[in-house]
């Protein structure tokens, strides 16, 4: 009798141990707790505003009580936060929004090791928007059409900093269309570039996102060209580069990603909630009110967008790398 009891106890103990060692069933419903959404930029900016709205809306499409909490991790022009996302635990409880145009060139220039991240390894969740870049000048400037631009021998472009995304896209635009280009840099953001342009510090500049829209609408700034596939609803009268004969589609890419190694099933759950949020009626109303344009896409669209962008800058990579690797 005692022997059976001993064996029984041993078996019970053994099975308990084995059960403890077996990893929790994969079918345990993800998510079970709050998800963190990393924004590599300061609160109140474009990426931050998008993220907070999406995060708040996503909560509706996730199980009851699960929140999506936005966390700003700023620094190094967005790299600190992006690296923080890259290094996070790939369990699906951390996602983030990335400014692809800022990250890809740097990695291509200095390599994934030094950069601290590898764009090929991020697990993409989806695309928020790909707002086209717009070519801007002050309305009191004599530059009105593409022909004027091409005729001007010396043209100064306003940018935030050498090596930044505005710089990158300025180069793409200038080279593709054969425009003269030299920079006036050091402005702290779109907020400083608008009055600087109106003041006459520089001739032209390029920007993406809604910040310049009110100025074009009230006539102070002039949009000369836009760089989307098709004309934006905000600028129905402005020709696209494509229409003018240049095969250049330049957009700001706002993509959502999860750290490398996030299981596909988990990523799918997040993608679903994300897409539902993007198509939510209240969310869409916010987008319209803030004069922005969403372009929701899922994992495939996001990955494709990155690949496209990579191809776009490849021909210019040598010069880009020269500059960007100084950082």
């Amino acid at each position, binding site marked *: 009798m005692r022997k059976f009891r001993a064996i029984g106890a041993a078996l019970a103990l053994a099975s308990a141990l084995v059960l403890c060692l077996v990893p929790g069933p994969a079918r345990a419903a993800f998510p079970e707790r709050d998800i963190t959404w990393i924004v590599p930029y*300061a*609160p*109140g*900016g474009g990426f*931050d*505003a998008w993220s*907070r709205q999406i995060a*708040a809306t996503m909560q509706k499409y996730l199980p009851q009580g699960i929140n999506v909490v*936005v966390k*700003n*991790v*700023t*620094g*190094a*022009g967005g*790299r*600190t936060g992006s*690296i923080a996302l890259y290094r996070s635990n790939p369990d699906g409880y951390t996602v983030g929004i990335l400014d692809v145009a800022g990250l890809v060139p740097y990695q291509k220039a200095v390599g994934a090791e*030094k950069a*601290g991240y590898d764009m090929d390894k991020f697990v993409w969740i989806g695309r928020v928007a790909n707002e086209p870049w717009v070519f801007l000048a002050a309305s009191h400037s004599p530059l009105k059409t593409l022909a004027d631009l091409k005729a001007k021998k010396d043209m*100064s472009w306003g940018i*935030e*900093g*050498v*090596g*930044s995304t505005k*710089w990158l896209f300025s180069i793409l635009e200038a080279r593709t269309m054969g425009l003269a280009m*030299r*920079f*006036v*840099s*050091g*402005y*702290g953001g779109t*907020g*400083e570039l*608008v*009055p*600087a342009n*109106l*003041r*006459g*510090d*520089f001739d032209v500049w390029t920007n993406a996102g*809604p*910040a310049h*829209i*009110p*100025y074009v*609408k*009230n006539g*102070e700034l002039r949009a000369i060209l836009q760089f989307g596939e098709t004309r934006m609803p905000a600028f129905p009268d402005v020709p696209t580069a494509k229409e003018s004969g240049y095969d250049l589609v330049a957009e700001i890419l706002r993509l959502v990603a999860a750290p490398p190694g996030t299981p596909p099933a988990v990523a799918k759950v997040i993608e679903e909630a994300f897409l539902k949020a993007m198509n939510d009626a209240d969310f869409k109303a*916010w987008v319209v*009110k*803030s*004069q922005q344009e969403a372009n929701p896409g899922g994992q495939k669209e996001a990955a494709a967008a990155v690949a496209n962008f990579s191809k776009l800058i490849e021909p210019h990579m040598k010069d880009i790398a020269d*500059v*960007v690797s*100084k*950082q």
Partner: protein
Amino acid sequence: MLDPLLTAAGALLQPQNALLVILGNLMGLLFGLLPGITVLAAMSILLPFTIGLEPISAMYLFIGILGAGPFGGAVTAILFNIPGEPTSAAACFDGYPMTRRGEAAKALGLAAASAVFSSVLGLLVLIALIPMVRAIVYAFGPPEFFMLLMFGLATVAVAAPGNTMKGLVTAGLGVLISLIGYDPITGVLRFGLGSSNYLWDGVNLPAFFVGVFAVGEVIGYYVAGGTIVKGDIRVTGMLKGTLEGVRELFRHPRVFLQGSMVGSIIGILPGVGGTVSNFLSYTIAMQTSKNPETYGKGNPEGLVAAMSATNEDTGALLPTMAFGIPGSAGSALLLGALILHGFNPGPLFIKDHLEIVWALILGLLLANIIATTVGLAGANLLARLTTIDVKYLIPTILVISLLGAYADRENIWDVALAISTGVIAYGFTRFDFPIVTLVIGFVMGRLVERAFAQSLQMQLDPLIFFKRPISLLLFCLLVLLFVMPLVRQFIAARRVA
């Protein structure tokens, strides 16, 4: 015009909004007090929680915080020589010596009065200048900025009377330290010491200030022991002292007006920021005073100069409203809050949403008044701390300050930065190197280089500074500012001979 004003005023009378202004004030005072944690950082942290509020309510909360910040920062500056806010740091120089003489209450009263009245003056200037705001912003381009900043930077030559050589050394070091990081003009990451991310944005301002002021000071406490108020001095009573302080303000009208103008102008110009204005005002006041050597030793005029320039957030409302473009980091956050609520602030904002604008103005007015009354009452309690033995203050102040250094961007390396900077800062004061000039160099160095480079990039013309009217005017003023004392000395010398 009147309708939105009534809407805003009406909103203020709603208990929820009135409470929010008061709550904002308390938070602004608290975060103003705490070294390292700027009211801006506090506002950023609170930003997402305001999503649920009405836009006007959120504005009242934030403006409450903003309005109380400067005085809050001045309290710790005056009592402990540790500024709670970089925008009130210059209050240390003369406020702290006053505390050591037992005149803490007077210093606090003076600081409060200067801050409140300059804010009101700033509001009047704001309202008066509304029709001209665009003209002003368009008139100030990089060359004008450069000249304006040179005012500040050049005064380091005279900011340390009797110790000019060492003053220049620390100023130069301050400038060099400010150059650490990514340079937008050339795209180069300079002096990164191998770090490609941490030092990319340069030496973090709050962490640097915590190091230079808080840590450096605490080391001093540890070495000296004892209490802050020198043992045998009688501390004047709170109420009596405060009133004396308020009265004192009216004995220095010129400096007060100068400081208020400096603060308002710096606020109007986007991109310069509040930290510059109080130092600029301080050094200009020193330069134009008849006895510059009394500055830094408890001359109330120095305190007036510092505190009357803390109204830059008022001035900053101007471009914020006219363009939807923030004139200061504080108003940038306000705009951020608006963006979060789905607005796209732009040139039409002032037309379409005048009630929000009025809310900001009324809120600011109210915030200043509440902040100073509550602040003075609270300061009384804090003033008692200056009589406690420093052994209790050391760990507590250290912990709060270093936490503040961490909290600004949640980066623990900032704590290490604050500690190392602090040890060196102690060395500076110990071996007679002035801190004033170090801070001026640090705050203005990078801005000056950038403005200079931008000016040259604009027209590729090195003489651009002299071809634009305002820039030329500022240059002449700058020369005058320096030549005048020399001329005075010359005349005085001749008279003696």
